[in-house]
């Protein structure tokens, strides 16, 4: 089945140690999104790629970066994780960039910062 895959499902890192989260999709969608979801809160959009075009949300900290080397893969890099960055990170995809187009979410990567 076509899907959005996130690896790893659980990631532990140390304070200040760079970490990379991975997302891949078999849907061949043009758009890939990264969301941050802290405990008991709603998902919050960090940024998205439309093909190779990167779109950063205004309030996304510089500590968060992203790469999309090809259509199928997208990475979230956290350059210097702080304790406040502990959260579930969700990757999603859609065909185009409109709210009416369904976004398909992966299972998420839960990041713990020690």
């Amino acid at each position, binding site marked *: 089945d076509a899907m*959005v895959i996130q690896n790893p499902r659980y990631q532990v890192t140390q304070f200040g140690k760079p970490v990379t989260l991975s997302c891949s999709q078999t849907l061949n969608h043009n*758009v890939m*999104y990264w969301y941050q979801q802290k405990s008991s809160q*709603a*998902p*919050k*959009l960090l940024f*998205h790629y439309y093909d190779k075009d990167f*779109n950063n949300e205004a309030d996304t900290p510089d500590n968060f970066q992203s790469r999309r080397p090809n259509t199928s893969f997208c990475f979230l890099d956290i350059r210097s994780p702080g304790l406040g960055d502990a959260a*579930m990170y*969700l*990757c*999603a995809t*859609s065909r*185009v*960039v*409109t*709210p*009416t*187009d*369904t*976004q*398909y*979410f*992966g*299972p*998420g990567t*839960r990041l713990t910062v020690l």
Partner: protein
Amino acid sequence: LAKTTQPISMDSYEGQEVNITCSHNNIATNDYITWYQQFPSQGPRFIIQGYKTKVTNEVASLFIPADRKSSTLSLPRVSLSDTAVYYCLVGDWSNTGKLIFGQGTTLQVKP
């Protein structure tokens, strides 16, 4: 993007119909209403979307009154597996693909 307001939590029993109402008083002409469901430790999943009147699919129904300032997600005969957080989102088809999630409604289905 229009702001949405939902009840923080709801309880129900298996077999009952559940109606979750979302308020979006400043909805714009081009805005669509979309509902997502999220189970613990999983990503959100699209349930249903509508613009006006009533939309029904195999999972739920969405009722939107003529003024579109609110909408109601209806889940028929819920089961324990419907326990989840339900998010109401309002977005403009002519805008970016941003999904701005509100606080969501935590539905607890009891046996």
